């Protein structure tokens, strides 16, 4: 009957478990401490940050609504950049997805090529793509469209490739048994199966792209960002507030639209 001596106070974890937990927390704290200390933070700036913020808000108010007509065109341009960029990326994403899916790729080398394209596209941020394309095409919406397309290709193609790898193989075999060519098999057996993913992903990416294209103007790639950046640099805070409100509205609108369409599809 002796057995284990039960403690009088219940505790959720044993001493060993708690030690491991504390070690994890200590590790995270050390990582945070290393990161923060190396950044050489000027803590004095924090002392008056709330006053600065209050001052900024005070200078923004009231919003200068007379500025609104100026930004209508760039706002529309922002949405256009997102839409056209997404459309162009879709054209490239479908073939790349077939290359990057194990069951439809030609051989090991084409699969690696497809995967490399995915990684390249996804690992560079839209704004950095913007820098690259502004250097090539000069400032303007074309650079923005290319930037949005370059970043979205990887995103859309990756999700389509995953869907292609999970298609029902029976349909593929059935089409192949009729003597269809490879392209015919892909278009009649695989494409209809991944179509919901394809459309859903594209619309989802479009809504992300509206948000992304709102800042592309910071690097000169068109859209509302250019006006926001200029207004901030001119300390025209009431204009900044109008632009921020406008961006807020179009981002919320695109999110709601994309959510509605996707809920209809699935």
């Amino acid at each position: 009957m002796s057995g284990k001596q039960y403690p009088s106070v219940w505790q959720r974890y044993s001493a060993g478990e708690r030690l491991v937990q504390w070690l994890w927390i200590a590790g995270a704290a050390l990582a945070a401490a290393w990161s923060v200390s190396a950044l050489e933070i000027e803590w004095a700036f924090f002392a008056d940050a709330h006053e600065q913020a209050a001052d900024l808000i005070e200078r923004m108010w009231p919003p200068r609504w007379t500025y609104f007509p100026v930004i209508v065109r760039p706002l529309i341009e922002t949405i256009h950049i997102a839409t056209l960029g997404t459309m162009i990326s879709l054209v490239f994403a479908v073939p790349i997805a077939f290359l990057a899916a194990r069951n439809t790729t030609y051989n090991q080398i084409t699969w690696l090529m497809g995967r490399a394209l995915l990684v390249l596209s996804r690992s560079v941020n839209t704004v950095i793509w913007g820098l690259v394309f502004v250097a090539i095409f000069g400032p303007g919406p074309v650079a923005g469209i290319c930037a949005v397309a370059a970043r979205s290709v990887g995103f859309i193609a990756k999700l389509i490739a995953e869907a292609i790898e999970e298609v029902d193989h029976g349909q593929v075999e059935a089409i192949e048994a009729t003597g269809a060519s490879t392209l015919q098999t892909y278009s009649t057996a695989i494409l209809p199966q991944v179509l919901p993913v394809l459309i859903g992903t594209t619309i989802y990416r479009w809504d992300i792209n509206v948000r992304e294209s709102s800042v592309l103007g910071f690097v000169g790639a068109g859209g509302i960002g250019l006006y926001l950046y200029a207004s901030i640099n001119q300390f025209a805070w009431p204009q900044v507030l109008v632009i921020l409100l406008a961006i807020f509205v179009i981002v919320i609108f695109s999110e709601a639209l994309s959510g509605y369409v996707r809920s209809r599809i699935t």
Partner: protein
Amino acid sequence: MTTSAIMHANQAAEWRPPTIFGTRRRRAIVWIGFALYIVWSVTSLDVDAQRILAGIPRAFDILARMFPPNFERWEILLSGMIESIQIAIAASIAGLVLSIPIGICAARNLAPKPIYLAARGLIVAGRTFHEVIIAIFFVKLFGFGPVAGLLTLAFASAIFLGKMLAEDIENMKEGPVEAVRAVGASFGQVIYYAVLPQVIVKSLGVFIYRLDANLRHSTVIGIVGAGGIGQTLSASFSRYDFDFSSAILITIALMVAVGEWFSDWVRRRLR
């Protein structure tokens, strides 16, 4: 048996795949509307075709100058990279700490209605603006440098993690909460003994994902002067230092790929 097969074949001739639009007429209207929108957007962009054509040889020129990538100034590259990583780690941990109150306040089943609405409002407002826009305000408040980047990503991470945490808390089982409450536990004890065990594994997964996302974002906020490798990259572009730019781009791509692989690996192990 055979007759039914023939009937099926006859039906197949008339059968058309169902559309998501309900009727085919509505489908036609949607597609025509979409086509008109594309035409409008292309024509309203006032694209200067000559400039694009002039850009094509320039593109080859730039690509030629990007190659081979120049790793000679690897010290600047490395210090920028380490700064980006530090910003990402510090911002993720700060965001995690801040996300706990946000997540609890934004969970409908834990917080009272006014607090819930306020927290949800904060989440919607915070998610709408791109990190670069938030960064530019922190740069105005704290000056150029990594502090602005750190605060930007900490803010964005707190909002993101808080939203995920709130959704997790709303989907948890009510039983443990009721049981712990029934023994007279305080609010803090309820959180620690009933809520935390139910959400911790998924939250850790989301945290690791966010660490990876922050690593990616930390490469871009430097464009508005908020520190990290983005600042170095932006400077190299404006100095037409394209072979150094390509070296930075390759390093960023490698780092992001490694970060993504690491995050996938950790999340698979957590599952």
